């Protein structure tokens, strides 16, 4: 099918975009990479009165690393992230996960801000935002605010952003050089959304674990931070028994829905299996 009629605006600044969003009183949509929104328009599942295209705002595309934080302009393309040396060095978890986001021609257009604002529960970037305790910067008519991952995602495809707010920046704490990371994912075909994905960061020498970070994609309406499983590793270390215990705990912590792709029970099982794989692979990559 083809999109229903809409008015189209391509403002040159974020302030202009916010003013336009205000003018349509909730009936306008921001257009970023279009890799999720345009399919919805084509199927007429979404019929906004207007599209506010951010693609003509060059100041929204950047990657800056300072003070232990990597900042991404909302319009930074997934493809730019994939090939960024800064990201490879400071956020190897994000580099690895980016290659799992759709396919190269999708990543040419798709943006980090769009992926997080879209809040698909199976998407990789929201899980990473949750695992790393990242935050986003949001700008609206009343000014700017920062929102932590746990306050951002509300349910399927829903964030705490107001309809006249624009997500302008994504901030991810850089990963300590000695830590190991892994993104484990199961999907039916390469490039499909994850049935389950697990983001893992593991720090510590030998069998000791000074820090563990674990979060899921696809295991519920929002990304789930697996804090109780992390605590098992931080307390009991990285031996076979605590890893198995953490994986079992991870499966208990999630309450996924059944859908056409997988049953709830299968997703719970996968959460355990992939947690163990992710932890082991992250461990092996420590200190490199």
């Amino acid at each position, binding site marked *: 099918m083809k999109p229903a009629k809409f008015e189209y605006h391509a403002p040159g600044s974020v302030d202009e975009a916010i003013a336009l969003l205000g003018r349509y009183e909730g009936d306008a949509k921001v257009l970023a990479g279009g890799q999720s929104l345009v399919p919805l328009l084509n199927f007429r599942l979404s019929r906004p009165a207007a599209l506010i295209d951010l693609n003509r705002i060059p100041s929204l595309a950047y990657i800056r690393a300072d003070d232990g934080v990597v900042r991404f302009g909302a319009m930074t393309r997934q493809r730019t992230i994939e090939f960024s040396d800064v990201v490879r060095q400071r956020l190897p978890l994000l580099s690895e996960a980016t290659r799992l986001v759709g396919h190269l021609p999708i990543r*040419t257009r798709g943006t980090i801000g769009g992926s997080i604002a879209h809040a698909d529960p199976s998407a990789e970037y929201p899980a990473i935002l949750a695992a790393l305790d990242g935050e986003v910067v949001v700008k609206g008519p009343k000014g700017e605010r920062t929102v932590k991952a746990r306050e951002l995602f509300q349910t399927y495809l829903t964030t705490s952003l107001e309809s006249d707010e624009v997500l302008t920046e994504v901030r991810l704490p850089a990963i300590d050089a000695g830590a190991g990371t892994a993104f484990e994912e199961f999907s039916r075909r390469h490039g499909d959304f994850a049935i389950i994905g697990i983001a893992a960061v593991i720090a510590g020498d030998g069998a000791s674990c000074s820090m563990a970070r674990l979060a899921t994609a696809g295991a519920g309406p929002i990304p789930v931070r697996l804090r109780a499983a992390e605590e098992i590793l931080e307390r009991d270390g990285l031996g076979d028994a605590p890893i198995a215990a953490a994986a079992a705990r991870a499966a208990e912590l999630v309450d996924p829905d059944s859908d056409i792709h997988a049953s709830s029970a299968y997703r719970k099982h996968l959460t355990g299996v992939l947690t163990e794989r992710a932890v082991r692979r992250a461990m092996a990559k420590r200190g490199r």
Partner: protein
Amino acid sequence: MPEPVSISLTVNGIAREGRCEPRKLLVDFIREDLELTGTHVGCEHGICGACTVIVNGEAARSCLMLAVQAEGAEILTIEGLAKDGKFHPLQEAFRQHHGLQCGFCTPGMLLTALDFLRVNPHPTELEIREGIAAVLCRCTGYQGIVKAVDAAAKELGRTTG
């Protein structure tokens, strides 16, 4: 009522212009307004890859872009791949290795492979399979396509050093 918009862009090295509603998809603009029907349209939601073209040097789905977003862009479609009546090495390899049957996926497959080989000039077979997973083919079973991309990579490596 949204006004039609004017669009100027470069397609296959030639300056082109058109006028359409903002809701017109780039793939439909290319096919209907520019009359370049080599770019195919299948699913209209980003899954099949038949509509893939090169936008400012990088492969993108033309069913997930609005024509108005291509204002000022440089686009390469399948019609621009052969030069001076001579097939591009990728086209030649697809012909030699049976990389196509009905040809529906082929324009998207070739332009996806072109971009893929630019970012990864010496791919392994697994990497080729992952790269072309971006485009669905209902005929070939992919084996011929994998062989063709592999052969083209070697040929391009030989001719460009």
